């Protein structure tokens, strides 16, 4: 230890007196600190109120990369300085071993560098406090430093000291480093490729993401603010971050250990005795042999290495091998899980639960300890159908074990594959008969995010399995398991708590012809039965829980207990938790938010109140937003650069975007939304709540789920906010001729433009009240048979007495789009007034039913004209008053396209 202190004292003295060090250190601190400081200075341009978590995230945007560079540079520089200034001769006769020297040198270097790397963190900490984001939790800054910076600093110094010692020169060391990583990435992966593996580089460890540069550039741009690095004010989760770090850091850490260890064999305190190569004077290659001999002389390992030296080299080799082994092991583990998932998904099994067998009651008793969950589920299911059923199918988080399962009074065969659970019971469940099912569930509920290219999973996995070239392979060790129970947040969806009956087929959707990413997916569950749900969940006292029946957890000894008992859609059975502070919200219920966000919540509280009033006003029967529990959910932020909720989604996205998710009485609001500076419309909150409610009321065919969701959304939007500003008319180049019914993408203009326009026409034809009545009757129908889009329009037509067959086939199922234009319009004076004649021509397709209106000095005259594709009709309008203008569809309620050159307005300019 005395010797180590000597190394440290010398390193500190040397570096602090070195102008080079002073310059590098100053630049390092300035650059790393600049990001949070400039962010603080430009905070008025952000769409959200910045929190301490944002300043912390900004600090660690470049800290890993720059720390590694500075550490490597100073370490190599230190080695060279030592040789240049002759201080190595002191080392040469010191009694310590090479390993002792290298290790102490490494330690001393880090004693200098680690405090330096804390300097920008302190600057950011101070900046955050000064910029109105008081840091209540130091761990927001310290944990990332410990996890993202310290290991990198340790590894970079080890690597650089090792490589610097081996090569002896800074430039050669730099070139060697590039060569090593390049070779590792290419040649190494070529070799691993033969065994079907691949190891990605250290870019992610260094936090190298192109978006980081875009963000920094935007800090200096007065007009644009490009996102934010993901940051949260929730307590840092070191476990999750470490889990992400290990596979990303393993390669670099292994290489650092390897070269750090090998460095002790090249200290050159004792030069080896090398046998001369006899080269004939006539040898044509004598020059090259001479060069090779000099290289041999310069790069031969030191002779007579001591036991500590061998131990260090061995340790380096072992750490390297262990790192590679760890990566391959992780890779294999994730491959195994991916294979399980693939086999399950490709099989399309098991068969879904018959729609006639539905839960009547569902009880969940669960206990949360650390990240694990133990849950006892008792469900009562009833067969309301007309035939006996023996097969039940459930979905359950694949990371949870079914410890036991039992159907009372029946023999049970259980089969599990990935997230599917099949129960075959004997004797079968007879019509009107009920059965009681018990499940014991245990495990650490997690998400598994496989590191294989883009979705769909099945296609991506097949591509991986067929890969023959290294670049087609994927480093599956980079896959992530995100624990759903953490100290900072608990987010358990229904299948994370209990097996949930599956009613939609598990057969993959057909491959998409337009976009690969939307085909071959496991269909989403489209039916969620309503049942009497009761739950009782125990958690450690520091965590608060909220459940879909409303109410929040209550302290009970060392624990907190959440109880709930209500009628509920099983899909709403989500449990959310966190280290929250409860805040009363008048008119809504209670809100649970992180302590730093209490003021933000108070700012947004009126919005929730208004949303609740709106929802209650239009659909009092649904009662969706009253006595709600608004909870703040924090993003899952680990080391994965820009993962987490996107700033754009929250700040820049139009009001089309939902900013909250509803689970029964619980409304989940992301942290970023809570910190929005500009309040978003309350109508969007009510709209989303209502859309979800309408969707759950009636089973729809799987392939029309998206259509119905969007239809209900447009409907709710129309009621709450008046709908599309341009009415039913589409203009410019935005003529959308995509059938709404079969549009596959959620963002499709068929949903965002065509459907809202068509809906206005529909409402014009039917009247708002008729539509309300029709939808009320649809969602109130207890029938469990799927209800499709054609049936929807039939009900709408029947309710209103307006035939809608053509409307449906032209505009919903088809791609027709009328385009109307006035032709040959003549204003003719007659003895008793004026005649206005002309033709209305449908230049487009589909049947239009539009009004033409003649405005006069006193009262308008109108006529409704029905036109099929390409058809034109003559019209004559008579008025006693002087005409002013003839207009087609002046109220913009007729679904059509108005192209450039179309005439839908003719002004009266005097008698002819």
């Amino acid at each position: 230890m005395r010797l180590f202190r000597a190394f440290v004292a010398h390193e500190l003295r040397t570096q602090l007196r070195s102008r080079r060090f002073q310059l590098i250190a100053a630049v390092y601190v300035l650059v790393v600190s600049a990001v949070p400081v400039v962010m603080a200075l430009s905070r008025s341009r952000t769409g959200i109120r910045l929190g301490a978590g944002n300043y912390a995230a900004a600090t660690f945007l470049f800290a890993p990369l720059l720390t590694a560079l500075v550490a490597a540079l100073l370490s190599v520089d230190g080695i060279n300085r030592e040789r240049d200034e002759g201080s190595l001769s002191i080392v040469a006769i010191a009694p310590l071993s090479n390993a002792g020297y290298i290790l102490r040198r490494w330690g001393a270097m880090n004693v200098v560098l680690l405090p330096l790397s804390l300097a920008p963190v302190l600057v950011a900490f101070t900046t955050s406090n000064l910029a109105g984001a008081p840091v209540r939790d130091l761990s927001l800054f310290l944990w990332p430093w410990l996890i993202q910076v310290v290991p990198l600093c340790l590894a970079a110094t080890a690597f650089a000291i090792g490589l610097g010692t081996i090569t002896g020169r800074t430039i050669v060391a730099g070139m060697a480093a590039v060569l090593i990583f390049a070779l590792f990435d290419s040649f190494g992966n070529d070799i691993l490729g033969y065994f079907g593996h691949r190891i990605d580089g250290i870019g992610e460890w260094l936090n190298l993401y192109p978006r980081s540069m875009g963000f920094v550039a935007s800090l200096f741009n007065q007009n644009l603010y490009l996102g934010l690095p993901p940051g949260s004010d929730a307590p840092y989760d070191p476990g999750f971050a470490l889990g992400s770090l290990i596979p990303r850091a393993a390669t670099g850490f292994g290489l650092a250990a390897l070269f750090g260890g090998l460095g002790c064999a090249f200290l050159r305190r004792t030069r080896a005795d090398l046998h001369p190569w006899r080269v004939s004077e006539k040898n044509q290659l004598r020059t090259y042999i001479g060069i090779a001999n000099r290289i041999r002389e310069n790069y031969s390992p030191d002779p007579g290495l001591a036991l500590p030296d061998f131990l260090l080299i061995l340790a380096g080799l072992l750490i390297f091998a262990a790192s590679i082994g760890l990566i391959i092991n992780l890779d294999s583990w994730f491959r195994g899980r991916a294979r399980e998932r693939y086999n399950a998904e490709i099989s399309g099994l098991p068969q879904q639960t018959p729609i006639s067998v539905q839960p009547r009651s569902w009880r969940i008793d669960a206990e949360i300890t650390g990240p694990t969950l133990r849950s006892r589920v008792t469900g009562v299911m009833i067969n309301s159908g007309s035939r006996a059923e023996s097969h039940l199918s459930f979905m359950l988080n694949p990371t949870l074990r079914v410890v036991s399962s039992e159907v009372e009074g029946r023999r049970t065969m259980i089969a599990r594959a990935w997230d599917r659970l099949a129960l075959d019971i004997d004797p079968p469940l007879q019509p009107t008969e009920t059965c009681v099912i018990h499940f014991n569930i245990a495990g650490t509920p997690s998400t598994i995010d496989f590191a294989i290219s883009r979705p769909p999973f099945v296609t991506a996995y097949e591509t991986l399995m067929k890969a023959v070239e290294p670049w087609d392979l994927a480093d599956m060790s980079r896959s992530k398991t995100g624990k759903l129970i953490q100290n900072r947040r608990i987010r358990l969806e229904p299948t994370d708590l209990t097996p949930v009956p599956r009613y939609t087929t598990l057969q993959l959707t057909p491959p998409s012809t337009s976009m690969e990413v939307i085909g071959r997916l496991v269909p989403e569950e489209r039916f969620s039965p309503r049942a009497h749900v009761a739950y009782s969940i125990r958690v450690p006292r520091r965590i608060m829980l909220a459940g879909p029946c409303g109410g929040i957890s209550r302290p009970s000894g060392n624990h907190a207990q959440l109880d709930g008992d209500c009628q509920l859609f099983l899909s709403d059975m989500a449990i959310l938790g966190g280290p929250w502070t409860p805040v009363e919200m008048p008119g809504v219920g209670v809100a649970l938010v992180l302590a730093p966000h209490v003021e933000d919540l108070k700012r947004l509280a009126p919005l929730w109140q208004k949303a609740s009033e709106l929802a209650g006003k239009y659909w009092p029967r649904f009662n969706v937003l009253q006595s709600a529990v608004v909870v703040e959910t924090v993003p899952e932020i680990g080391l994965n650069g820009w993962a987490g909720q996107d700033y754009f989604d929250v700040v820049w996205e139009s009001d089309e975007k939902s900013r909250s998710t509803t689970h029964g009485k619980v409304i989940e609001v992301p942290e970023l939304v809570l910190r929005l500076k500009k309040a978003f419309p309350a109508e969007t909150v009510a709209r989303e709540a209502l859309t979800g409610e309408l969707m759950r009321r009636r089973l729809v065919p799987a392939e029309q789920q998206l259509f119905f969701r969007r239809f209900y959304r447009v409907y709710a939007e129309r009621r709450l906010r008046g709908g599309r500003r341009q009415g039913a008319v589409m203009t410019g180049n935005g003529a959308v001729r995509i059938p709404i019914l079969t549009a596959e993408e959620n963002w499709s203009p068929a949903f965002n433009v065509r459907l809202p326009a068509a809906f206005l026409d529909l409402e014009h034809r039917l009247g708002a009240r008729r539509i309300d009545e029709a939808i009320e009757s649809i969602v109130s129908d207890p029938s469990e048979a799927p209800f499709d889009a054609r049936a929807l329009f039939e009900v709408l037509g029947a309710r209103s007495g307006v035939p809608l067959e053509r409307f449906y086939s032209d505009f919903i199922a088809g791609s027709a789009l009328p385009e109307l234009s006035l032709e040959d319009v003549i204003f003719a004076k007659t003895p008793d007034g004026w005649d206005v004649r002309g033709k209305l021509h449908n230049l487009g397709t589909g049947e239009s039913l539009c009004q033409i209106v003649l405005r006069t000095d006193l009262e308008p005259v109108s006529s409704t004209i029905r036109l099929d594709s390409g058809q034109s009709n003559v019209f004559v309008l008579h008025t006693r008053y002087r005409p002013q203008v003839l207009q087609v569809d002046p109220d913009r309620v007729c679904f059509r396209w108005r192209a450039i050159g179309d005439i839908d307005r003719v002004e009266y300019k005097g008698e002819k």
Partner: protein
Amino acid sequence: MIQVRGITKTYPDGHTALKGIDLDVGEGMLGVLGPNGAGKTTFLSILMLTLQPSGGSRSYDGLDPHFRRNWPSIRRMIGFLPQSFSPIGHLTGLEYLVHCARMREMPLTGHEIEQRSRRLLDEVYLTEAAGRPSAEYSGGMRRRLGIAQALIHAPRLVVVDEPTAGLDPEERIRFRNLISDVSQSTAVLLSTHIVEDIEATCDRIAVIARGSVLFDDAPATLIRHALGKVRTIPAEVPLPPGSVVIGSKVDLGERVNVIYDDTNPFPCPDDGVTLEEAYSALLAAHGFRLDGGGPGA
């Protein structure tokens, strides 16, 4: 203390620097003398364990460096002032010595190390410069600081390689005296090609040339060997057959050549042979050309 037997060294480029050195290094001061390129530095490097020999054996107080575990003990035993010694420039003389003492794991407290460093600085006449960065030291001061660092860990042997090269006469004398003082308490091995340094300080001399030890005894013995074989003749007088010029000087206003002639049946007068002439005579006797052309054929 140190026994060296049959040490050979051939470099990877084929050059043989040592051809079998046998030498014992004991108490007192041993001067290793030899022309440039004789293999002195190679020999010292091998002695200091910074270079592996091609053959032969070494023993340091019975410790065999063949066994790696003995190296720390051997290194503790020796202090070294290399030919191209340069202290760490940004450290003061005192800081430098303290650093050296700590690196060599002296079993002293910090205070004791500082006291010892100050005492050594005093002994090498650097008390006043102790607080100045060593980069500001003159060549002589650096060498003296070098001696202090070589002694800081109280070694049993101090090896000094070409310590006076490049020093002015005053500094050279001061350094010689310093070495001489050191040798009172510590064995010193002084390697140089400057005979004057040896003459002034060493009670034993080893002459190395062409990788071999030509002579190993007291300086007086070397002189005695030369007696009767070294004489002067006027510069304009032709050389007797078989004789070799080993030097020239001005004697009583006349320029004379000093020649080595072991063929003369009439021994020369035995007075006036200096150690340098005896050393040159030894080299000449072994076939070295001493006219500035380096070792002869």
